[in-house]
């Protein structure tokens, strides 16, 4: 491959990525506005448990984080392994049992949308995520459970990251 071909191909890829990124930001902007509205609505619910409120607030705080997008993409295989393990041992998801029934569905939807919107902060991360999900779906693996596990594992990793520790020390 000649230098000019490398240059042309590189510029083409970069240009394409720029267009996709810009279109994605424009496309997701109204969805993010809706997301913040739903999040604030949940936070204003008096019955919402404190731990869920913290998670919702954190999701809103990091809605534009690209590093979180890559974290989710990297954790997807682990979440899938955990989901398969839970399915084998027959363990059901009890993380939302303490949430009032009328709010449970909203919290679940909010969590799923949060994962998707966060991953969409990086087009490449989104692409890799969907390739993984597609591969798992083809193999009839529990994708829905894996996404729920992904939220849980992602939050645990984030709360124990150096960045979170720094934030904690600043706030103390």
């Amino acid at each position, binding site marked *: 491959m000649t230098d000019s071909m*490398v240059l042309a191909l590189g510029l083409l890829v970069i240009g394409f990525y720029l267009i996709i990124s810009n279109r994605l930001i424009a496309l997701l902007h109204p969805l993010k506005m809706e997301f913040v509205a739903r999040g604030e609505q949940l936070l*204003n619910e008096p019955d919402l448990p404190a731990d869920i409120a913290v998670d919702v607030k954190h999701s809103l705080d990091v809605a534009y984080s690209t590093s979180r997008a890559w974290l989710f993409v990297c954790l997807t295989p682990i979440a899938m392994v955990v989901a398969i393990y839970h399915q084998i041992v027959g363990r059901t998801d009890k993380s939302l049992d303490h949430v009032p029934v009328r709010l449970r569905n909203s919290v679940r939807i909010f969590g799923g949308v949060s994962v998707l919107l966060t991953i969409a902060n990086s087009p490449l991360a989104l692409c890799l995520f969907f390739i993984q999900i597609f591969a798992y779906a083809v193999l009839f693996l529990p994708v829905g459970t894996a996404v729920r596990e992904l939220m849980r594992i992602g939050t645990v990793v984030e709360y124990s990251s150096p960045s979170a520790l*720094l934030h904690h*020390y600043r706030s103390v």
Partner: protein
Amino acid sequence: MRFKKIIAIAWQIIKLLWKATWGLLGFVGLLVTLDSGWDGFSKDVRHSSFVNFLMHVWQALIALFTGDLIGCITLLVSVAILTHLLVEKARQRSKTEFQSQRKKRVPKGKVKKK
């Protein structure tokens, strides 16, 4: 406790170094590209005729950016950084609106004072 604090500060330093590396790479990339491509550019223009002037301009542009493979790659890195900055600007605009939307909302039960 102290160990955790040290990790947190180290993380902040790594983040700063990461940003500085990108900035430096972009700057050096542009310099190297212009330097290595300049010879090819001047040579092509020297041999160009008026009739196929446009053709030679195109060739000269290619030569300018492909003086060698390193120049080509560094140019690509520079363009990638500029692209990243452009996308980041659009994202910041969206983020500002997102944050203002969050601040605008009044919590339930609290009444705005007139």
